[in-house]
């Protein structure tokens, strides 16, 4: 392999946890300012329509004698290399190298780096099933500012790292590779108040992040609305539905005139137009689809944060899985109403934070298995099961093996707006590192004293795959917990002024 000859390298997003990044920086810069250091690392991948996602699972840190400590530059020993190769073979994952350049030096690959990457790109695929190799370079300037570059190869396809996303419990960081120049207008007067409160850096951070909102109805549309006003300039909106008359009461951005069109617009188009009316420079990717679908997942690879606003069992499962397998964090929100004797007795919201290493939806007991199954059935299957349930009753048997009804009260706009705004607030805190929620899961009821606030931090089950497959990405497909049923219509990308 000759990386110098690589042209048209595809963009690659790298994700890692804050914990791994902390260890990585301590290791790489341990011989600064003048001497380099290095390690192998274990990673998962996902090929997308636009490039590749690389998820750093763990560092294979060097022991004594694994690197030449006498040399200023990096030299891997054979035993260390073989140990990494065998780990790759055993795990079914990929292995790459990370090394530092001396302080103040650009992380641009040298001729020696070219030789090293060329060698390892041919060596590691000999072990195990993965043919993918990556080499990353990090460096710091005198002010401690970190920069990086990265490149990789899988078969005959070359990749270049464009973005590094770090998922910490208190902060979500986005760094661009040293060669990537992003043009964002940082100076404006619109976000002066936000800058005064959180600082200029935080206000600028919001302008460089990409947020996905799954479900843009009652809670998703106000969340998008609040974030756009806070300065977020890049959104992915996902919702399969078109606007219905009953949505007018809760979907921010919708109006009576939307129903002049037949059919009425997709919800994602309605919210997109709202965001663009606030700031015409906002970028919005509109997908009429579902989070389980592959095209949607490809778009989520490069987001800083997902807001899951569908309140469905399959979405909750999916975001839990995206958090541990693909290192994509999510704030999930659901709302419910309770009533008794003609009076509303509960307006309840539940917010859950999913990140790598946190409990998944099943650990939290947040999924109803029957409802989840019904959400993914065809209409024909639902009808058939209802008939079979009636037949079972006629035979004197229990019907609930076939069908079970779960009556639910509808939700209304004043409360969904409150819940949507609340998760937008937590999103701002997490993205900027300025504040975090006090608990991993929060429940509240605004009709109870003290808003009926309950916060809890349940541990994950020790043996759960959400703890053992962190960062496995597509290589963890053997334990995937949810998939899109084939009867769903394909994802439709709503472009330009299309509604």
């Amino acid at each position, binding site marked *: 392999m000759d990386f110098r000859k690589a042209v048209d390298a595809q963009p690659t997003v790298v994700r890692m946890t804050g914990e791994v990044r902390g260890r990585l920086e301590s290791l790489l810069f341990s011989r600064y300012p003048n001497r380099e250091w290095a390690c192998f690392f274990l990673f998962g991948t996902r090929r997308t329509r636009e490039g590749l996602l690389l998820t750093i699972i763990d560092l294979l840190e060097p022991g004594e004698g694994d690197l030449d400590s006498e040399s200023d530059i990096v030299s891997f020993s054979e035993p260390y290399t073989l140990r990494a190769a065998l780990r790759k073979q055993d795990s079914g994952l990929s292995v790459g190298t990370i090394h530092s350049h001396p302080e103040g030096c650009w992380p641009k690959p040298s001729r020696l780096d070219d030789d090293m990457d060329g060698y390892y790109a041919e060596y590691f695929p000999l072990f195990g099933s993965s043919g993918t190799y990556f080499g990353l370079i990090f460096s710091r300037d005198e002010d401690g500012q970190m920069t990086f570059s990265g490149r990789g190869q899988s078969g005959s396809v070359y990749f270049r790292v464009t973005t590094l996303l770090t998922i910490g419990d208190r902060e979500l960081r986005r760094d661009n590779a040293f060669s990537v120049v992003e043009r964002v207008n940082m100076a404006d007067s619109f976000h002066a108040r936000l800058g005064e409160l959180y600082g200029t850096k935080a206000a600028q951070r919001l302008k460089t992040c990409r947020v996905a909102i799954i479900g843009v109805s009652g809670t998703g549309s106000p969340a998008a609305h609040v974030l756009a006003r806070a300065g977020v300039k890049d959104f992915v909106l996902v919702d399969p539905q078109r606007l219905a008359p009953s949505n007018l009461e809760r979907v921010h951005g919708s109006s009576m005139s939307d129903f002049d069109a037949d059919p009425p617009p997709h919800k994602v188009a309605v919210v997109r137009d709202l965001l663009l009316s606030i700031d015409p420079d906002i970028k919005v990717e509109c997908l009429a689809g579902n989070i*389980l679908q*592959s095209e949607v997942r490809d778009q989520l690879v490069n987001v800083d944060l997902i807001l899951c606003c569908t309140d469905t*069992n*399959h979405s909750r*499962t999916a975001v839990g899985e995206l958090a541990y397998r693909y290192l994509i964090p999510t704030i999930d929100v659901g709302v419910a109403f309770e009533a008794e004797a003609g009076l509303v007795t509960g307006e309840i919201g539940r917010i859950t934070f999913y990140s790598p290493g946190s409990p*998944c939806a*099943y*650990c939290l007991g947040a999924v109803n*298995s*029957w409802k*989840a*199954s019904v*959400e*993914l*059935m*065809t209409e024909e*299957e639902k009808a058939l099961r209802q008939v*079979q349930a009636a*037949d*079972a009753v006629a*035979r004197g*048997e*229990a019907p*609930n*093996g*076939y069908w*079970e009804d779960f009556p639910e009260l509808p939700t209304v706009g004043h409360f969904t707006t409150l819940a949507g705004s609340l998760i937008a607030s937590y999103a701002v805190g997490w993205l900027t590192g300025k504040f975090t929620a006090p608990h991993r899961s929060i429940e509240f009821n605004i009709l109870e004293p003290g808003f009926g606030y309950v916060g809890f931090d349940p541990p994950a089950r020790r043996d*759960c*795959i*959400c703890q053992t497959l962190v960062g496995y990405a*597509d290589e963890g*497909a*053997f*334990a*995937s*917990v*949810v*998939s*899109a*049923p*084939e*009867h769903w219509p394909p994802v439709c990308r709503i472009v330009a002024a299309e509604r």
Partner: protein
Amino acid sequence: MTDDVRARVESELARISIPTLLVFNPDAVIYNGLPSTITASPTDVMVLVPGGYPQTMLDLAFLPAGSPLLGVLKGQPQQNLSAGGRTWTQVSYHPHTNGGAPPWDPTRHGFHTYIDEVLSWISVRR
């Protein structure tokens, strides 16, 4: 069946010691030669891979059409279905919906655990 689902099902089947067969259109797993205390000869049992699996729970079971176990085991025999070149009869057997098995959890359950439910089922008269 998507690649992810196939990878998942194949991984589950690799954890089972008895012979199994994964068939397509309709997508299903056939457990071959399961011992039953009710009949002298072993039986095959087919279970469909539902849409949306593994979040969608495994449910129901199919016995070979004409099986002597039909009407003997718990569950109402229902319609026939062709799969894997054979004809099967669906039986209304629902272990994960109040049928004795714990609530479905795709982080724990799959074809590798459903086999235990099926083995119990085929050895108990209704």
